């Protein structure tokens, strides 16, 4: 499935008509959001912790060059090897070179957003190295030959019936007669994957944090796949974005817990694994060779700009689950590796705004994302900034279209009832090519649902700021 963020309108429109998707999102995204809210309500001093976590991330960014050097020094001292990659191609080639050096043919991979961003698996497969996803959700996505629709829960868009069908048709699982039991499907996947863990000659992981003072790569999973995928295989390659650095273990203690609470409502993920280096020579398991690839791929372009804060993201997914737009259209509609509110910020920044023009507008600016964010990232402000950047470059007609479109996300009445947002969206997107250039058409369809409001006379930016100030207090801060 090719990624194309510029087709958001069309894809969102299609998504809104997909009843199965709607059922899956209604269940999965809302439940995830409710779980987080419950867990945060039970947290003492949640706001202090949020600022404590944010501080840790901002300190990591402020000292990024030094902390990266410290990381490298620490890893190297323990016998690991650190590689630096400027872009996706360089990172992918480094992994391939490691495979060639050690004669690796088959790897097991644990869930990692950065490897999605690099399109690492298709690259390796093209060069004859087979990769198997081991996170249950990512495994389903791989068998389905589709893409993850969420950064934490890759199959948030699927119902169990769909997964059952896939396992029966593609993997030869015995079909279940009556009730489809997730437990039976999980057992099946465990057995299927277990044998392959033993066949694999290397493991690939991402990293949630880099603890600079010891050069430790921290990763969290609930299934144990990352830990198993680096216990049996002689080579471990960890691929991590350069922005993931935090200074100390105290910072880690805060963040690993707030990450779990925000992502799934757990106190801690089941396996908070910490990698320091290759196994010592007398150890009975663990990798003999340990590589860490530090990936830039556009991050240094964001660093130091007004969007720097986006680099503080710990990829918990809370802003996706809580977003009225995500809840209605799901992750695939964004046409990007990183969907949802934070994706709408970083996709244009990483891939170029011209490749993701609709995304900064795919938001009601309601502020739910900022309120949910465990490191208090001001997503609405950055979306506004991106809108502003785009408007400087685009034609007046385009600007008018985008104003109308964002209005449809922002109108309080529409926002109150998510369904009406959907109705408005499907109307607004019904132009031939789904682009808002065809303004009169979509607006015509749109006014069938609602009375059309007069355009604000002021600039969109001013208008939004006024709106926002009027609504402050909803922001949770």
């Amino acid at each position, binding site marked *: 499935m090719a990624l194309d963020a510029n087709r958001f309108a069309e894809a969102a429109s299609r998504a809104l008509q997909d009843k199965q998707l709607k059922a899956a999102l209604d269940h999965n995204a809302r439940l995830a959001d409710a779980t987080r809210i419950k867990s945060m309500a039970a947290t003492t001093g949640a706001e202090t912790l949020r600022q404590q976590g944010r501080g840790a991330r901002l300190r990591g960014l402020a000292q990024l060059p030094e902390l990266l050097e410290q990381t490298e020094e620490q890893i190297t001292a323990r016998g690991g090897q650190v590689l630096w990659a400027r872009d996706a191609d*360089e990172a992918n080639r480094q992994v391939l070179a490691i495979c060639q050096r050690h004669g690796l043919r088959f790897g097991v991979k644990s869930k990692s957003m950065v490897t999605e961003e690099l399109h690492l698996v298709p690259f390796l497969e093209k060069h004859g190295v087979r990769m198997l996803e081991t996170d249950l959700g990512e495994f389903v996505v791989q068998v389905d030959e589709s893409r993850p629709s969420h950064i934490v829960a890759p199959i948030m868009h699927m119902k169990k019936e769909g*997964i059952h069908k896939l396992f029966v048709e593609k993997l030869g699982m015995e079909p279940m007669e009556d009730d489809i039991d*997730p437990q039976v*499907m999980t057992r099946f996947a465990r057995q299927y994957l277990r044998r392959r863990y033993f066949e694999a000659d290397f493991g690939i992981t991402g990293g949630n944090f880099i603890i600079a003072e010891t050069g430790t790569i921290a990763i969290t999973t609930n299934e144990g796949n990352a830990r198993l995928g680096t*216990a049996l295989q002689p080579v471990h390659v960890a691929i991590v974005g350069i922005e993931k650095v935090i200074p100390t273990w105290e910072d880690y203690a805060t963040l690993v817990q707030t990450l779990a609470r925000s992502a799934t409502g757990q*106190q801690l993920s089941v396996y908070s694994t*910490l990698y*320091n280096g290759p196994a010592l020579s007398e150890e*009975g398991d663990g990798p003999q060779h340990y590589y860490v690839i530090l990936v*830039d791929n556009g991050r240094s372009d964001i660093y130091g700009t007004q969007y720097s804060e986006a680099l503080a993201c710990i990829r918990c997914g809370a802003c996706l689950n809580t977003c009225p737009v995500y809840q209605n259209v799901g992750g695939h509609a964004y046409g990007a590796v990183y969907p949802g509110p934070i994706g709408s910020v970083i996709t244009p920044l990483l891939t170029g705004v011209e490749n993701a023009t609709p995304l900064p507008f795919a938001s009601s600016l309601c502020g739910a994302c900022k309120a949910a964010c465990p490191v208090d990232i001001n997503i609405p402000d950055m979306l506004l900034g991106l809108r502003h950047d785009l408007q400087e470059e685009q034609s007046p007609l385009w600007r008018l279209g985008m104003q109308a479109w964002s209005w449809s996300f922002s109108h309080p009445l529409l926002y109150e009832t998510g369904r009406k947002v959907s109705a408005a969206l499907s109307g607004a997107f019904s132009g031939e090519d789904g682009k808002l250039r065809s303004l009169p058409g979509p607006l015509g369809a749109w006014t069938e649902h609602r009375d059309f409001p007069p355009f604000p006379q002021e600039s969109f930016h001013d208008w939004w700021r006024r709106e926002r100030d009027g609504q402050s207090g909803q922001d949770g801060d």
Partner: protein
Amino acid sequence: MSEAREQILGRLRDARDGLPDAPAAPERYQPVSVLDDESAEGLLSRFRTELEGLQGEVYVVPDEEAALDQVLTLLAESGARHALTWDWPHIPLPGLAHALGEVGIDTLQATPDNREACEAAEAGISGADAAIAATGSLVVSTAPGMGRLATLLPPQHIVLLRQERLLPSLEAWVAQQRADDLAHLGTRSNLCIITGPSRTADIEKNLVLGVHGPGRLQVVVVEGES
């Protein structure tokens, strides 16, 4: 040094002026999970509540003899005949090897050449560096004779823990490492904070245990000082 490295670091150094101000590190970090009662009993009771809430199992025994009985009972219940264990000196229960031998349970330790045999074991037995009451977690780290596989491969994982290793919070564990100048951490190739049995909720948020790691996590806590 590689060209990529120099370029990336150079770009970051050139751009850093535009960064938002970062607050100084707090003098005292607020723990994420707070404990009302940090007495020995308080810690044990919280640890039990938390881990049981995750469908882990906690067995508190008064002494080593009772601990041996408990381990044998757990193995008898699951019907395990082969146990993958850490090297004996690293499991805080003298006499365990002998006791398992007496009831005919085969034991083995992981080496790079016995992977298939490890996979056949139905139970894993290990110790732990520490346990964390507030979150119901166990901290394990690797060293020769303290491998990853015993804690990971078999469907049943039994952990022997001295009560004195129970700490209030993850933050307290970090403080302990800090007091040691992170020296312990530095010698380990791998650490893991295990919080409950392996699980997934990927399929419609249904909770399923034992995905890639053990579905049963059983902690035998031996009370008192060693």
